[in-house]
């Protein structure tokens, strides 16, 4: 049974007074509600990752291989060589503290090791000890410490208490990207078989079926058919998408959460309705039915391996370019890694909207277009008929997903869509949105069930900003463009700001979209009565 979650009043009472004990000692205190189950051996075996075994983070003995220290340090040496960024980030921090209070986990826990500077320092101290002359000679005085089992456990605890959201990096005068340090720390831990079940399950599923949930092709089709039935009930229109159709102009890829969970499926219904209305020549792939990539929370190699299916399917189906749905880390991976891993994608064409003729110059290299760019361009060219009054019962605010905001600068497009589909839109405070957005608290594979206290604490700053607009403007809908957000913000709102619902931007669009030949709409995509149609 998962540990009991304390009441919000208790959790909000955060103690920011640092403990007296010197942090360097390395403590392996792993608190209930703050950790995820260790990966089952079968998942590691499925993708041929080292040291599969039964283990539990709270066990004294983690059943590490005898030469675990060598493995870790060799792995570190290899990565210091391979990634200049990592080497630089190990060297240049001056500990100015600008990042200290920018982390949602620090704000929600008061634990100093959640200050990005100190989280990084956990690994840096090991770097100093084994890779710098001053650390080797002077030890503790030079901020160096030995890699003991307790230090390893501490690194594990805080590498899985960082969502790789990169908010801290926005404030760092040196531009140190603590997410990259966490990413490397997790890679090193993976060499010892120390990933979580919640991350490795989706990785293994993705390797086998192409998607995190392990949806088989006929399951994907059946879930989409179910949504099509609901679309017909709402609009009277029969939408007929194609699957694995060779020669389609566009391949559409979205996270599998949109094909399974609520409210993700409503976002998916929005995509289906939009594409139908446009008469878009596109297809779904049942092999590449996952834009997300939990391999990214494992290692660079694993992420690369799992990513390949998307270009491979695009090639097989002979499409011209790829359109991607609303997802967070999927876009971090697509935007910043794809071209390096698998580019140049010269078997595809530079993306051009078949409806408006707009050339997506920014996607010329990768051939991957974000749906918020695609849809806002349609609205800009007046290609869609929209009735925002259908969303009049909603007072909307927008949560920028960390990865699309800080990883690719998508700020205006989703807001443009919301402003054209809703009449009531209110921004959260300036220092909590756009590039300074606060994480949902559950990204990078921390969206499990057993670490709920950690998630609620990590999401506290975001929830606090929602509370602010709820009190001021009566906000009751938190819009976003990320599948992890859609899955995690709902429990976060239920816990901190009850009464606020969560929706993807394309759900709002699906409701406002006036489709040719549709019947009079009386219910929304969730089957709830539209404003003014309650009696219908």
């Amino acid at each position, binding site marked *: 049974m998962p540990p009991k979650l304390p009441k919000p009043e208790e959790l909000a009472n955060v103690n920011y007074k640092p403990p007296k004990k010197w942090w360097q000692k390395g403590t392996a205190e792993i608190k209930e509600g703050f950790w995820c189950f260790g990966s089952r051996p079968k998942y590691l075996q499925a993708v041929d990752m080292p040291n599969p075994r039964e283990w539990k983070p709270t066990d004294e003995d983690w059943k590490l291989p005898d030469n675990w220290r060598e493995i870790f340090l060799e792995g570190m040496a290899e990565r210091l060589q391979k990634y200049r960024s990592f080497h630089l980030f190990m060297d240049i921090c001056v500990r100015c503290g600008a990042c200290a209070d920018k982390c949602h986990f620090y704000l929600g826990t008061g634990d100093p090791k959640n200050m990005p500077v100190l989280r990084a320092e956990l690994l840096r101290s090991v770097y100093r000890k084994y890779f710098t002359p001053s650390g080797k000679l002077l030890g503790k005085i030079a901020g160096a410490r030995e890699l003991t089992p307790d230090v390893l456990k501490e690194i594990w605890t805080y590498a899985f208490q960082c969502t790789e959201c990169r908010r801290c990096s926005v404030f760092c005068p040196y531009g140190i990207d603590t997410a990259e340090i966490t990413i490397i720390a997790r890679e090193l831990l993976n060499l010892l078989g120390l990933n979580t079940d919640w991350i490795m399950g989706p990785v293994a599923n993705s390797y086998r079926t192409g998607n995190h949930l*392990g949806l088989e092709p006929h*399951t994907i089709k059946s879930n989409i058919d179910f949504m099509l039935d609901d679309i017909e009930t709402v609009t009277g229109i029969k939408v007929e998408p194609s699957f694995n159709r060779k020669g389609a102009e566009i391949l559409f890829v979205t996270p*599998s959460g949109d094909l399974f969970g609520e409210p993700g499926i409503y976002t998916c219904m929005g995509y289906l309705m939009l594409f139908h209305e446009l008469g878009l020549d596109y297809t779904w792939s049942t092999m590449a039915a996952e834009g997300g990539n939990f391999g990214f929370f494992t290692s660079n190699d694993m992420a690369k391996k799992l990513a390949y299916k998307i270009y491979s399917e695009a090639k097989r189906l002979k499409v011209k370019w790829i359109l991607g749905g609303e997802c967070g880390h999927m876009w971090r991976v697509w935007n910043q890694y794809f071209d390096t891993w698998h580019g140049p994608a010269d078997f595809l064409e530079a993306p051009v909207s078949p409806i408006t003729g707009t050339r997506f110059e920014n996607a010329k290299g990768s051939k991957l277009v974000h749906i918020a760019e695609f849809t806002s361009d349609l609205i800009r060219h007046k290609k869609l008929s929209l009735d925002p009054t259908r969303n009049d019962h909603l007072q909307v605010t927008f949560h920028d997903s960390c990865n699309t905001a800080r990883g690719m600068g998508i700020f205006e497009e989703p807001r443009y869509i919301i402003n054209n589909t809703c009449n009531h839109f209110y921004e959260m405070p300036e220092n909590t949105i756009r590039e300074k957005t606060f994480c949902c608290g559950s990204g990078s594979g921390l969206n499990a069930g057993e670490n709920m206290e950690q998630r609620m604490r990590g999401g506290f700053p975001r929830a606090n900003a929602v509370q602010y607009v709820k009190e001021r403007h009566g906000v009751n809908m938190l819009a976003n463009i990320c599948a992890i957000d859609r899955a995690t913000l709902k429990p976060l709102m239920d816990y901190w700001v009850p009464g606020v619902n969560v929706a993807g931007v394309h759900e709002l669009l699906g409701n406002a979209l006036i489709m040719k030949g549709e019947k009079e709409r009386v219910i929304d995509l969730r089957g709830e009565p539209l404003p003014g149609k309650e009696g219908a």
Partner: protein
Amino acid sequence: MPTIECDGKTYDVDEEGYLQDWQIWSEAVAGYMAKQDGLELSEAHWEVIRFLRDYFQKYQIAPMIKILVKEIAKTMGTEKGNTKYLYELYPAGPAKQACRYAGLPKPTGCV
């Protein structure tokens, strides 16, 4: 690995009590799990469990709640095809509790 003992057999389960292998399930396992939660399984409970197992055999995943609700409405009538009815049967949530009794694994990913 945690295990449960019932019906003279030992079953491997995960940390949250879900069966490691859905195929080794038996009705006794479901009954045992329910008893641990202080629940007595009625015919209404079994209807849901049987549906879940049939669905899983066909689709290799537990159904979304919406599908569960709709299918139950189709086969057992609209008075049973609603979330409220399912929560009355399975207070800890049909997705988690009923799937656990049915021996199915919990879905993972962005859900």
